């Protein structure tokens, strides 16, 4: 057979051992099509980001990809299930025109969801329900969350009280409420009524449709109330925070309630500022992987 063979230094060119030849024309070698890096950004509240390398070869090529960490070190892919430092799932895959590299946090970036630790309402006078509106007259509610990962004076992207409506009144006209924060550094639990505690100046007035069948959820923007509380001199990360939801002349028998004993489903979702940048390197070969 005619061809070209180059042996390693000191090795007889007549050798048949592939390991001792630096090149043989009867062995293919990967041919580089492109070698490049690209970076993407995941914004707060987003879960994943994708960086795309376009090759336009029309077939699936052989490729190697690397994840470029914040330490500027490159890790060979195609899959890092626990990302770097246990954060993020990193993967890459090829198609007929592109290589996709994905960084997936598995949850919204810089977003914390807190489950309610305490409920209170002025209808039953107890802590089993989160309730507000008109139920045998105007009634108010309170809700508390613990261990907030929030620095003092930190401005957030958003803060939403996600109210779970397990039951409601018979009146499907709009619920009318005002929401204020409990203006305390680290509000205590609701083993006694919290309704006399100080309220934030920041408030939100809202009308909420009650036509949906239960259960359903609706959101209350509490960003300004949250930021008034975490700007208090005594606030520190890890403290507890609470909110009042106050009836604001709701129609007769128009109210919502969430039952604590049935596993509270009302949450506080806080999205903090910031973004994460991630990078990839893709080495794309001209050699075909797929049959077609």
């Amino acid at each position, binding site marked *: 057979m005619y061809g070209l063979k180059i042996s390693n230094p000191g090795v007889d060119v007549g050798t048949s051992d592939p390991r001792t030849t630096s*090149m043989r024309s009867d062995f293919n*070698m990967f041919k580089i099509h492109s070698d490049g890096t690209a970076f993407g950004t995941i914004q707060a509240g987003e879960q994943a980001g994708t960086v795309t390398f376009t090759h336009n070869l029309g077939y699936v090529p052989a490729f190697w990809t690397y994840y470029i960490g914040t330490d500027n070190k490159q890790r060979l892919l195609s899959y890092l299930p626990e990302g770097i430092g246990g954060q993020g799932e990193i993967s890459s895959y090829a198609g007929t025109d592109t290589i996709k590299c994905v960084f997936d946090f598995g949850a919204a970036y810089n977003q914390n969801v807190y489950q309610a630790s305490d409920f209170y309402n002025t209808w039953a006078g107890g802590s089993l329900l989160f309730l507000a509106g008109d139920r045998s007259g105007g009634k108010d509610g309170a809700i508390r969350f613990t261990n907030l990962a929030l620095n003092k004076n930190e401005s957030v992207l958003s803060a939403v009280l996600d109210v779970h409506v397990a039951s409601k009144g018979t009146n499907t006209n709009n619920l009318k409420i005002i929401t204020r924060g409990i203006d305390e550094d680290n509000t205590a639990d609701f083993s006694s009524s919290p309704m006399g505690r100080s309220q934030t100046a920041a408030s939100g007035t809202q009308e909420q449709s009650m036509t949906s069948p239960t259960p359903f959820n609706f959101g209350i923007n509490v960003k300004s109330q949250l930021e008034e509380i975490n700007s208090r001199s005594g606030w520190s990360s890890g403290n507890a925070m609470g909110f009042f939801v106050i009836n604001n002349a709701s129609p007769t028998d128009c109210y919502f309630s969430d039952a604590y004993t049935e596993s509270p489903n009302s949450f506080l979702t806080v999205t903090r500022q910031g973004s994460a940048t991630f990078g990839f390197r893709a080495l794309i070969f001209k050699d075909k992987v797929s049959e077609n």
Partner: protein
Amino acid sequence: MAQGFRVALPGKSGTSTEPRDYSFSSEFTTVKVYSEHFGTIGLSASGTAFATISHNLGYVPMVIPYLELKTNRWFCGPGFVSGTGLSIYGTNTDAYMSNQESSVGTDNFVLGVKNQTAGSISVRYRCYIMGDSGN
């Protein structure tokens, strides 16, 4: 450099000492593709199946497997497999290459694939058996 053979990249000097300036230099062992294998593995629901690829090199080579773990999405193995192998696994893929079931020996490469779905599927693969040692 003792006597040898070099091919510089376009625009680069044949006397450069920078390895990246060459498409080939006999000073450096080149990773060579000894053989390529394309196939399809059929998998029962949640099952495991194997492909045995013979190379008969008499030593453990580098192996670079690519698998279509989801339709039109091909994933690359980490590259250099020796002994019991390395995993390719994706939580959003239909299947994954199992490091427990895959291995490279002196005569063959056993590719083990696990089905993550509740139905039967087929997984296409292409394996490059390199001429260079993997251990």
